[in-house]
């Protein structure tokens, strides 16, 4: 996979993406503080690939996903999609581009307009991009509902008549309506029960296979990611601290934070003794991130030193395709610029 992405330009190329939220206060809401929600994030997503963006609350993963789509205006950085500079697009071109880039939301209750029928919600994209009208649009809506595993006659019903899992399928159908190449899946299964979660995970995989979709799969549940992703990027306090192919990340996590994160996941095997790395305290506030390596105050690496506290570690390729932002992780291969980022 990496061999392919090095030869072909990636579908999505994000470089140094930054989103700072000013905290405003007072009568005329003058900015008093800045929250560094996303602080210099770079990655690529190839055609048909799933890149998982993993992190705990406050890591900036959702903001990153929305900034890429310009649902939130990024503060700085570059976003290229299919060779086009997303940040340079005017409003009309951006609307046109949204045919190709879609999003599925976490909250199956908040993401559907309660006053629109399911059919109307799905049809909106078709009409806006003039993909189909009238009977043809009806036909497309029915086909989409069928594709996500819902009955075609549901088109005339309202969202409140559906369960969480069904609503999530409706949200997926709405995203698919405009035939995108890329979908930001923002925690699409976190609000669902286990049995329904598995259905939606499988549906997303099937759709990817059938339609050649690329996903940016934002999640906090590492187990779901282990089933969905081709590559995984771990975020902590607005930065990517590790990025690696799925198998490598789960088998040999290198960054101490990733190791702690993986070890914290409860495993459904009673009696299995596991080495657990317990992190002390809470993640610091993104309004006031630590100097140097953002993880250093909670890091338990034996060689942790002044360098960690003062110098921001770059995300470097410590092993083939395995990128780590840590001063103390030795490079297993000679460091080189990845051609996808060069």
């Amino acid at each position, binding site marked *: 996979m990496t061999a392919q992405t090095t030869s072909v330009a990636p579908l999505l190329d994000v470089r140094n993406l930054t989103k700072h939220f000013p905290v405003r206060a007072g009568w*005329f809401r003058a900015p008093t503080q800045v929250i560094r929600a996303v602080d210099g994030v770079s990655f690529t997503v190839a055609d048909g690939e799933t890149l998982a963006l993993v992190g705990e609350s406050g890591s900036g993963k959702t903001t990153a996903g929305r900034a890429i789509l310009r*649902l939130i205006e990024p503060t700085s950085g570059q976003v290229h999609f299919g060779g086009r500079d997303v940040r340079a697009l005017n409003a009309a071109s951006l609307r*046109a581009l*949204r045919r190709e880039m879609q999003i599925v939301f976490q909250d199956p209750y908040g993401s559907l307009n309660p006053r629109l029928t399911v059919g109307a919600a799905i049809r909106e994209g078709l009409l806006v991009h003039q993909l189909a009208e009238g009977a043809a649009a009806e036909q497309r809506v029915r086909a989409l509902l069928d594709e996500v595993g819902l009955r075609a006659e549901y088109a005339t019903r309202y969202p409140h008549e559906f369960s969480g899992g069904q609503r999530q399928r409706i949200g997926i159908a709405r995203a698919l309506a405009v035939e995108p190449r890329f979908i930001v899946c923002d925690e699409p299964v976190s609000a669902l029960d286990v049995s329904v979660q598995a259905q939606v995970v499988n549906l997303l995989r099937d759709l990817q296979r059938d339609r050649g979709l690329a996903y940016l799969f934002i999640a906090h549940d590492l187990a779901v990611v282990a089933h969905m992703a081709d590559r995984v990027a771990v975020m902590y306090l607005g930065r990517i601290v590790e990025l690696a192919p799925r198998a490598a990340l789960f088998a040999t996590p290198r960054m101490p934070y990733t190791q702690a994160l993986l070890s914290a996941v409860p495993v459904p095997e009673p009696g299995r003794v596991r080495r657990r790395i317990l992190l002390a305290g809470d993640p610091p506030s993104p309004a006031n991130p630590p100097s140097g390596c953002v993880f250093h105050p909670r890091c338990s690496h034996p060689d942790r030193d002044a360098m960690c506290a003062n110098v921001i570690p770059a995300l470097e390729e410590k092993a083939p395709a395995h990128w780590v932002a840590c001063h103390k992780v030795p490079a297993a291969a000679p460091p080189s610029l990845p051609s996808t980022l060069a």
Partner: protein
Amino acid sequence: MSARRRTLVPLLALACFVVLALGAPWLAPAPPNAIPADGLIQSLPPTVEHPFGTDPLGRDVLSRMLHGARVSLSVAFLSVALASLVGTTYGAAAGWIGGRVDALCMRLLDVALAVPRLLVLLLMSALWGTLPLHTLVLLLGLTGWYDVARLVRSDVRGLRERDFVLAARATGVREARILWRHVVPHVWPTLVVTATLGVANTIALEAGLSFLGLGVQPPDASWGTILRDGQLPGGARWWLTVFPGAALVLAVLTCNALGDALRESFAPRQVAA
């Protein structure tokens, strides 16, 4: 009482008022300003001929009240419609644009709210001398939109962050269409409720102004001007106070009851867990 009946009863009552007002030219026994043919210019208590009595100029109070309802209700409805339009536009714009524009809009509103409405109205009518009806509507409308603006703005701000609005934007829907299709329909309940309560408030306010001689001007009849004609110590002309007063109280109560019932019926349904 069921939710539906709680809405239906005041709605029917309001409809009665509207029908009586609209039908005034046919229902009223006499033209509102007709001085009796026998030339008897005198305020008389209720009789069979004049069920609500006559006023100091000998005019039939029932007829004046029916025609007065036209004036009172239309002033209230029109000025509230104007206030809703202005308030919704202002509030929706501030909430949708957000940021500094919103902050500035809200601070301006704070300033406007700090000036008592009655004071503005008294001042304006004093400056104007006699107010024509359309100016009265304009004044009431332009001083009555602050609450609407605040409520609409807070609704819109909440809606702006909703995922389904983001989803529409991510689909490539134009901002104007998002506002119209995904935001405005959710503001309707707020608007209908505040407008209904606003009508009640404005009916009372107009009556008050007219009673003081600053609202509707003679010879035009409104409930407030009829009340004014009944001013005499000791309630000597009680029919000039009781009948228009009762109409006023009933109309205000009806609108308030309707507003409350609508607010309840729009409240999110309780769903069993």
